[in-house]
């Protein structure tokens, strides 16, 4: 019996029992589809995270304040990054392209009759454009001088500019933020949504101005203004480690702490991506188990129906034996049938999985990226399930006594 005939017989047997075959394949279909969908969802999530982190700028270091260092009262307030650290890093560390810092606030912005409520105010430094990779469309960004002098200027995000000024040229106009009058010196180019931040819907002020007018701190007089995160953009990727070391030494010295008791942490984009990935990893493991169990259940379903099929077709088996089929011929035939059930199930599962991933993306609003590996993996698992669970029924069929089988009804 050649392969083509074996396949034809198996196909015929599956096809002539359509509804039963589909029900049998359901477990495999769900298992395979689950593998594909879950990998597509987690790959989509990962891609979003990686993109948003990379979208922050290139070769970026994140220095975070860890404020709660030991003790109560006076001690507790001593730690953390301050605004002066920004200047120090820029001046004393080699290989730095820019250092930027954010101090956020929120207030109303008014121009003429138009007023926008709760606009995000980003207090930052001149290096912001370099570090966060934003472009100025009109006018200019503020300079180091503006920071030093606490100049009352503002740079608008593109959406804010459009809503306030529509057709008018905003440059040089005066707007009121909260109660402070500021001069518009620039408008940023559209950047869109990156890492949950809409760059276009914010306004940008010199950080010193924000400290002074929008988030005055009572501790500023003692050690300077506290900041939560300092962004350092490094010139070249290979200098990252070197810059990390320099920044660490500098800050340890400035804050009068040791490496062990440091009141800050330094992370790279990759560190952050890895942290995010490890959380999606555990989620993926869980779904992987679900898919695996589903495949096994599907396999048991196949075994079940194959055992039924062997019983139902005992006479056919007996006749085939009488006509000269060897045990191995019978075994191959039933194994092929089980394998075909699982492969067709696998194929339908791939279709459902790919379709499901697409649906999650289109309708569910989730980002999904179909991973070719997941298709290969789930399809191979389905095939293995077919062979594994098809073996026992096939063997039982092959070992039937032709006399008994022929007399069976």
């Amino acid at each position: 019996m050649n392969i083509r005939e074996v396949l034809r017989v198996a196909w015929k047997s599956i096809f002539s029992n359509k509804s039963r075959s589909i029900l049998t394949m359901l477990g495999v279909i769900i298992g395979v589809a689950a593998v594909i969908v879950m990998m597509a969802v987690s790959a989509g999530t990962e891609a979003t995270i990686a993109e948003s982190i990379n979208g922050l700028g290139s070769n970026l270091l994140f220095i975070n304040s860890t404020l709660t260092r030991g003790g109560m009262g006076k001690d507790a307030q001593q730690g953390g990054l301050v605004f002066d650290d920004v200047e120090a890093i820029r001046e004393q560390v080699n290989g730095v392209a820019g250092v930027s810092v954010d101090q956020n606030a929120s207030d109303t912005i008014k121009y003429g009759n138009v007023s926008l409520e709760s606009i995000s105010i980003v207090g930052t430094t001149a290096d912001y454009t370099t570090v966060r990779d934003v472009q100025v469309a009109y006018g200019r960004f503020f300079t180091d001088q503006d920071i030093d002098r606490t100049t009352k200027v503002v740079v608008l995000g593109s959406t804010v500019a459009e809503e306030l000024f529509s057709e008018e040229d905003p440059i040089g106009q005066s707007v009121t933020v909260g109660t402070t009058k500021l001069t518009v010196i620039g408008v940023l180019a559209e950047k869109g949504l990156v890492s949950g931040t809409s760059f276009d819907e914010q306004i940008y002020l010199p950080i010193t101005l924000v400290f002074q007018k929008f988030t005055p701190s009572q501790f500023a007089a003692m050690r300077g203004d506290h900041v939560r995160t300092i962004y350092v953009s490094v010139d070249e990727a290979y200098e990252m480690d070197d810059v990390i070391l320099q920044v660490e030494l500098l800050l340890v010295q400035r804050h009068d702490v040791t490496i062990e008791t440091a009141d800050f942490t330094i992370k790279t984009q990759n560190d952050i991506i890895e942290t995010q990935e490890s959380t999606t990893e555990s989620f993926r493991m869980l779904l992987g188990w679900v898919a695996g169990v589903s495949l096994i259940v599907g396999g048991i379903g196949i075994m079940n129906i194959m055992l039924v099929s062997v019983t139902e077709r005992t006479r056919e088996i007996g006749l085939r034996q009488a006509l000269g089929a060897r045990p191995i011929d019978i075994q191959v035939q039933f194994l092929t049938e089980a394998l075909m059930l699982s492969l067709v199930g696998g194929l339908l599962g791939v279709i459902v999985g790919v379709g499901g991933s697409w649906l999650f993306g289109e309708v569910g609003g989730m980002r999904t990226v179909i991973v070719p590996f997941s298709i290969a993996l789930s399809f191979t698992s389905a095939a293995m399930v077919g062979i594994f669970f098809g073996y026992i029924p096939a063997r039982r069929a092959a070992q039937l006594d032709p006399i008994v089988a022929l007399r069976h009804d």
Partner: protein
Amino acid sequence: MNERIIIETVDLKKIYGMGDIQVAALDGLSIKIRQGEFVSVMGPSGSGKSTLMNILGCLDRPTEGQYILNGEDISGLDKVALANIRNKQLGFIFQSYNLLPRMDALENVILPMVYQRENNLPSEERQEKAMAALESVGLTDRAHHLPKELSGGQQQRVAIARALVNDPVLILADEPTGNLDTQSSNEILELLHDMHERGRTIMMVTHESEIADHTGRVIYIRDGKLDADRLNGKNAKKMKQKLRETMAATVSKGGEA
């Protein structure tokens, strides 16, 4: 008479059970069948004729004794070798036809060729051979009908075509007319006579002496032993003659109507 011996059994025994309780379904049976013989096997149920047919059909192996089929001692062969013998040397005709329900007549006839291990024919040649076999039983126009679309007699004729297609040395027929009405039975007997005239060796189990009368030799088995072995040549010829006259009458009547 042709002297080539197709079946020779020497003191064939088949013993069932173990320990003290042993039942001998065959208890030292020795027979010889020559090429071209048309033999009936008769005997009450439990006489061992089924066991004999199973062993002669290479579906079962004797506990003791020898079975020589077409010059080859096959008593000691294993399952795979027996499957080969069944495929190449034997043609089976069953009481209940045993056609595969999901295959059409032609595919059913092709089936034995599918399990051929030597001279595996290409698909077109198989079809041709199967078509020729169907022609010899007069069913070319039913080649693409499923068994359920055929009458009992037609199904049995497909089964006969299937038994012939691998050109076996021996045809084993187990109550081939047992499920059929008189008309269909006559058709099947007529076909068996044709095959016999063309030189086939046929062994047929039946419990109807009318049917057995059609064969040139009748073997009676009782309690696993040979009870009687009588030649029936003259009678068989007469029966065949009568059968053909009846058939011709029916056909002409059918033609007029």
